[in-house]
C-alpha cells in the first residue's frame, strides 16, 4: 500500500497495520526534514506531488521489492505540502519473516522512491532564498543523444 499524505504521517497508528504473526523482522525508514542541505540552512520545505503517477509508480516499486525480497507486509506514505524541520517526509515500513528481507526491501523502496516518483522538493532557506532540489542521481545520468537532434521550439 502506497499513499500520499497531506498532513502529518501517523507513524504510531501505521505501525499497527504491519503486524503479522509470521513476521520476525520489521524495518522502518523515515526521511526527516533536515536543517541543512549542501551548505544551506533550511527553514522549511514544500513537496509537490503528481498524485496519480506517484501512487501508481509507488505501487510498482513495492511490487518490485516483493519480487526481489519477499516480505509479508509493506506500507509506504509520502508527504505533500508544507513541512517544517524535523517533520517526517516519507515513511517506509516492511515486515518480513526474517530481517534480511525486511532491511533490503525497505532500502530498495526508499532508494527507488527518491529517483523515480514524480515528487519535487522546494527548500526555503533561512537567508530568504529558495530552490528546487535536484535528484541525487542526476549527476550520474548522461545527456541523451537524441536530444541534440531535436528542433528547438
Amino acid at each position, binding site marked *: 500500500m502506497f499513499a500520499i499524505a497531506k498532513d502529518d504521517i501517523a507513524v504510531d497508528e501505521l505501525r499497527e497495520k504491519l503486524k503479522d504473526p509470521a513476521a520476525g523482522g520489521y524495518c522502518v525508514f523515515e*526521511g526527516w526534514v533536515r536543517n541543512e542541505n549542501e551548505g544551506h540552512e533550511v527553514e522549511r520545505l514544500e513537496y509537490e506531488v503528481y498524485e496519480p503517477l506517484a501512487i501508481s509508480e509507488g505501487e510498482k516499486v513495492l511490487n518490485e521489492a516483493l519480487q526481489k525480497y519477499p516480505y509479508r507486509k509493506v506500507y509506504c506514505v509520502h508527504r505533500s505540502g508544507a513541512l517544517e524541520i524535523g517533520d517526517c517526509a516519507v515513511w517506509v515500513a516492511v515486515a518480513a519473516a526474517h530481517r534480511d528481507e525486511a532491511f533490503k526491501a525497505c532500502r530498495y523502496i526508499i532508494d527507488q522512491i*527518491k529517483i523515480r516518483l*514524480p515528487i519535487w522538493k522546494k527548500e526555503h532557506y533561512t537567508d530568504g532564498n529558495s530552490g*528546487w532540489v*535536484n535528484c541525487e542521481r542526476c549527476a550520474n545520468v548522461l545527456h*541523451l543523444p537524441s536530444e541534440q537532434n531535436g528542433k528547438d521550439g
Partner: protein
Amino acid sequence: MKKITVCYFAMFRERAGVASETLELDADTAMDVFVQTRSRHGSDEPAGHCKVAVNDVMADWDSGVDDGDTVLLFPPVAGG
C-alpha cells in the same frame, strides 16, 4: 502538426507560468515535445535528468506522441 496538451510541473511550471497548455507541435516523440517547449519550461536540464509521461503513463523519451495526447514534463525529481 499535432495538437498536444503539455503539462509542466514544479520548476517547469514556475518558469512556464502555467500548469498546462495546448500547443500545435510538429512532434513525433516525447523528446520532440520537450525540446520544442524549451522556451516555455525554460529548462537547460538534459532530458536524461527529467522524466516524461504520456496520457498519465510513464514513458520513454522516444515514445511516440499522437494528435490529442497529453504530455507531462517532469523536471528532476527529489522525493524522500
